[in-house]
């Protein structure tokens, strides 16, 4: 029994595909992890290179902001030359 509220997107009711022929091998006639190492590992490096210049520059900039703020805070916490001259 299928509850009626679940009748929307199910197999047999997903999309109309015309003019396309699909071929596939039976799972019993192919290796399960074909190319997992030989193609998968180079793919890791390819995916890393594609995202490197989007991810790394903002993170580097964030680190620079953090480092500069911490250095400036340490400087402001120290005594400045002439800070207490009025007390002499």
């Amino acid at each position, binding site marked *: *029994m299928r509850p009626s509220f679940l009748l929307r997107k199910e197999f047999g009711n997903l999309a109309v595909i015309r003019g396309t022929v699909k071929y596939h091998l039976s799972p019993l006639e192919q290796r399960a992890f074909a190319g997992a190492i030989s193609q998968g590992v180079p793919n890791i490096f390819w995916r890393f290179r594609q995202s490197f210049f989007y991810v790394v520059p*903002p993170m580097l900039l964030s680190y620079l902001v953090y480092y500069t703020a911490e250095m400036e805070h340490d400087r402001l916490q120290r005594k400045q030359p002439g800070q207490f001259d009025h007390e002499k």
Partner: protein
Amino acid sequence: YKASRFSPLMSVVRHTVITLPTPVNISTWWNFGSLLGVCLAIQIFSGLVLSLHFTAHTDLSFYVVIQSFGDVYYNWWFRALHANGASFFFIGLYLHVARGMYYGSYVFKEVWSVGVVILLLVMASAFLGYVLPWGQMSFWGATVITSLFSALPIIGGDVVIWLWGGFSVDNATLTRFFGLHFLLPFTVAGLAGLHLFFLHDQGSSNPLGVSSDYNKVVFHHYYVLKDLVGVCFFVGPLLGLVYFNPWLLGDPENFIEGNPLVTPHHIQPEWYFLFAYAILRAVPNKLGGVVALAVAVLILLYMPFSPQTAIKGLSFYPWGKALFFSLIGVFILLTWAGAKPVEEPYVVVSQVLSFLYFSYFLLIGPLTRIQDKLL
């Protein structure tokens, strides 16, 4: 004979996690939904066990929590699991929301709206739970956050007294916080079911942002196994913290019993609230800070109504991607700034970062639509 053909419940289970049509190309970023469900189950289970030995009273809570470590078998484990489970819950939440922002999942308006409500309830639940051990940070965190409601015009003072159940954070506050902390996770569980219901109406999105109706597979075994792998990678570090460094993410101030007469030098919430805390403190005006705090989370509700792009998500929008990862950097910096004292240059840095945080939501729509018009 198959049970699901005759049982409505098994039919729902079958359509939800067994034969559910799922895109063939969803990545690890789609694991966080199930991970959050696992987190919720861990928190409810460990919380139930802890509640068996907890007493919500200002004179007793602190000592009951500490004493139960030694007296109740494995209570140290359940407490460490519950405390660190909360942190991992928020790691999962923020990554889940980030996935939604990056891949344009907010076009599913109902799913997104219910998700934002879940986020707010989990934040409320975490805040309430942190008060229960009645340490210094528990008491003063409760005082600071509940006092924010006094910024409301006209009714603010009365609202705060009503919330407290008295004229300060005291026993009445602790007992009602325990009750609410017990109740809210079950509300979250119900809303999570609603979240899934709306999601399964349209089916999951995918990293390419195009319709996946042409290439779907059944959820079981593919994504049952993928989600199990995700659970192992998620629960592994959680248990690592529980066994080897349970207080890494905690505040040592909370090992001192809550004292209304002694104010800690640095009142700060747990790490997952620090970005909002930084935004709250960045605004010099009290009401303005409270409004900024609320808008920092509620602005997520604006995203379904922001200008839509030709292709869903940011996968094919280089400037959008750069802006998105800048937002990630801003979020991390806001978390750092929220833990800093109110001194220069942290004040100015917090204000600039808060401005940049809100600017993302205003800029991302126009920036991506410009690319649509140029191409």
